[in-house]
């Protein structure tokens, strides 16, 4: 049942890719001129379904503690779970492996304004990605600030931008972001940032936060992006970018050279590579991609979005699970996923103010593809 799609640069596959891309653009049709939220139906067909279930009421908040829009979710090596969400304030919560609320991290620090994602690195440091302050904030496991990258605009300058809204600017500054979206690391600790709504690039820093390289402009070609919205790395240091507006995953090598596009799984809001951030382990790695139910007009695209694809790292689709909706096990706009264990997926969802723990049952897959 496996289908192999454009994993490399051979001429035939390039042709396949171009055809697929043209199809993708054609399907986006009238939405092309619109901003990034237009969601497209995935091109891939006859994809087998992976049975899955949600653990009922997994995340338990004490009375008086609420999460808002769940933007980011990530586990550490001990199974602790972090959720970065938009409530009255943007807040970062920690939960036990059993889903019990443990504590809040980073409350009222200067870098929190509008949550976008959270990731845990190989040393269990917690990185909050905030698109309101254009900052990455690296917390120790204890919850102290170890490093920041990017800088919150001076308050008086922020006032001058009110009432705001903002627009793409593509300034491409070394140490400032334009509403960056996500972070990942390679096994050497180099930092990769998808940036973002107002830039269209991927930035690489060394482990001490020193700029190494940035690639990307706005557009539809290779090494061009239209809201790079999510980013992940594999143990070889390849970089997977959820190029949401272009309805594809772009794969870059460790020096940010273009390797491949996977244009068949809809608009990737969230990408995740299983196995955790490191250290490198013998587990086989998979790529998960969420073609999320768009958040701006939920009813419109509910019948053809909301599913998550499981892929080999080369782009081969293995299966899919889920659909748009708010019932348990359905997905109400997945914004980030954790897939440290490839059969346990944590989803942070915008629309229903929730996160879910999803158990996959690939061994129960039937051959009856839908």
């Amino acid at each position, binding site marked *: 049942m496996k289908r192999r799609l454009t994993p490399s640069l051979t001429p035939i596959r390039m042709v396949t890719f171009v055809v697929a891309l043209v199809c993708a653009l054609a399907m986006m049709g009238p939405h092309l001129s619109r901003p990034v939220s237009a969601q497209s139906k995935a091109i891939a067909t006859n994809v087998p379904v992976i049975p899955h279930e949600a653990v009922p009421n997994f995340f338990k908040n004490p009375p008086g503690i609420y999460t808002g829009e769940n933007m980011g979710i990530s586990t550490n090596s001990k199974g602790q779970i972090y959720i970065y969400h938009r409530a009255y304030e943007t807040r970062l919560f920690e939960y036990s492996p059993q889903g019990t609320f443990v504590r809040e991290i980073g409350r009222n620090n200067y870098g929190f304004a509008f949550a976008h994602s959270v990731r845990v690195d190989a040393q269990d440091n917690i990185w909050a990605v905030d698109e309101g302050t254009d900052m990455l904030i690296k917390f120790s496991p*204890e919850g102290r600030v170890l490093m920041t990258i990017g800088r919150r605009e001076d308050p008086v300058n922020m*006032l001058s931008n009110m009432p705001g809204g903002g627009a793409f600017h593509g300034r491409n500054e070394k*140490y400032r972001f334009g509403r960056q979206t996500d972070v990942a690391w390679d096994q050497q600790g180099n930092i990769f940032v998808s940036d973002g709504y107002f830039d269209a690039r991927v930035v690489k820093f060394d482990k001490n936060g020193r700029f190494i390289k940035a690639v990307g402009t706005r557009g539809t070609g290779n090494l061009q992006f239209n809201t790079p919205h999510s980013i992940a790395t594999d143990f070889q240091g390849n970089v997977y970018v959820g190029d949401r507006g272009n309805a594809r995953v772009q794969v870059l090598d460790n020096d940010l050279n273009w390797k491949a596009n996977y244009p068949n799984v809809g608009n990737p809001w969230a990408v995740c590579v299983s196995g955790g951030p490191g250290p490198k382990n013998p587990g086989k790695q998979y790529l998960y991609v969420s073609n999320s139910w768009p958040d701006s007009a939920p009813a419109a695209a509910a019948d053809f979005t909301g599913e998550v694809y499981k892929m080999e790292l080369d782009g081969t689709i293995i299966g899919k699970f889920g659909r748009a909706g708010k019932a348990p096990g359905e997905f109400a706009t997945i914004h980030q996923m954790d897939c440290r264990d490839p059969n346990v997926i944590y989803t942070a969802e915008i629309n229903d103010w929730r996160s879910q723990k999803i158990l996959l049952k690939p061994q129960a897959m039937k051959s009856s593809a839908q």
Partner: protein
Amino acid sequence: MTMTHTFKAFVAAAVLALGASLAAQNSTPDIPFDTNADLLKTPLDLFVGEVGGVGQNSKGQIFVYTRTGHPYATLGDNRTFARGGSRLLQFDRTGKFERELGQDVYGFNAAIGLRVDPQDNVWTIDAAASQIVKFDTDGRVALVLGRKPETINVRPGAPGGGRGGPEAGRGTPPAGAPEAGRGAAPEAGRGGAPGGGGRGAPGSGLPGSSFNRPTDVAWDRAGNIYIADGIGNTNRVAKFDKDGRFIRQWGSTGSENGQFMGVKSLALDAQGNVYVADAGNKRIQVFDGDGNFKSQFGNIGTPLTMCMTTGSTQYLYISHSGDPDGMEDAAIYKVALDGRVVGKFGSAGKLPKQFGLANSIDCRNENELLVGEMTNWRVQRVTLKASR
């Protein structure tokens, strides 16, 4: 002399000048130093953010004025009211958190400086409220200089910018909008009665006492107060008596003697001379206490802040950052009062012994400094070792 000769002479002179400049930089000795970059210890729910200012009192207690928490805008009748975004924290001499001062006060919005005076009062400088607040040793507010604009009026006529219209341009000038400036002359600053009332110049004080993004404060031996004003568009130094009564001001925008392009810091020596960090012109200008220009010197990069030592031979520590992010080009210079650079230490970056926009230096002890950084959210205690 032909044009060609003139040109050659010019090139030769330029090359010579460049060579001399490089030679001067290369010959500046590096001062050996070490730092404790993990100095401040706060509870897990309290975060030091960008350090606008750090200083210590005679007991060694450390005060940090920091951008932390959130700058908010409260919606009001045709206006937004900016609040929050900075806090004033007190630590013991070992860096352990002791208490907070100025909780929820009106004018803590964008920390940009802090100084401790000889009587151990703590003075905060805020670049959004455009205020200087003096806290006594009990933590009470003892003096407030400048008035916070009712609406921080960055765009006249825009929502949140008051009523707009022609009168809006003569009120508190929008930061970063030089064309709307009220100039530096005291008579131009009168736009409206103190209090403003939402028309004209909300936040305007008495003539000369309304600031636009001030950055620093210093005192002479009589207790007179000098304000660096600032990084808005006023480019002046304002002088007040010890009770906060306006005495005089000097300076305007430009690069002549007595003009400034961004007044980032000031300091006084024991004789009462005023050293003014003129960032855009990459120089320090020296005035007497009445504002008469005396001299200037450069070779200190782009100054962010200064600190005047208090020993019998006084020195200035001057922080330089050549890039806006503190990642490319930075150093702290030790400079004799005649402008001779004695030595330098530090570089740009995020690691210990590197500085990410060192915006504040305390040099109460000449060889054990406190250096506060904006982008690295920390204070480093710097121990300078004897050269060679």
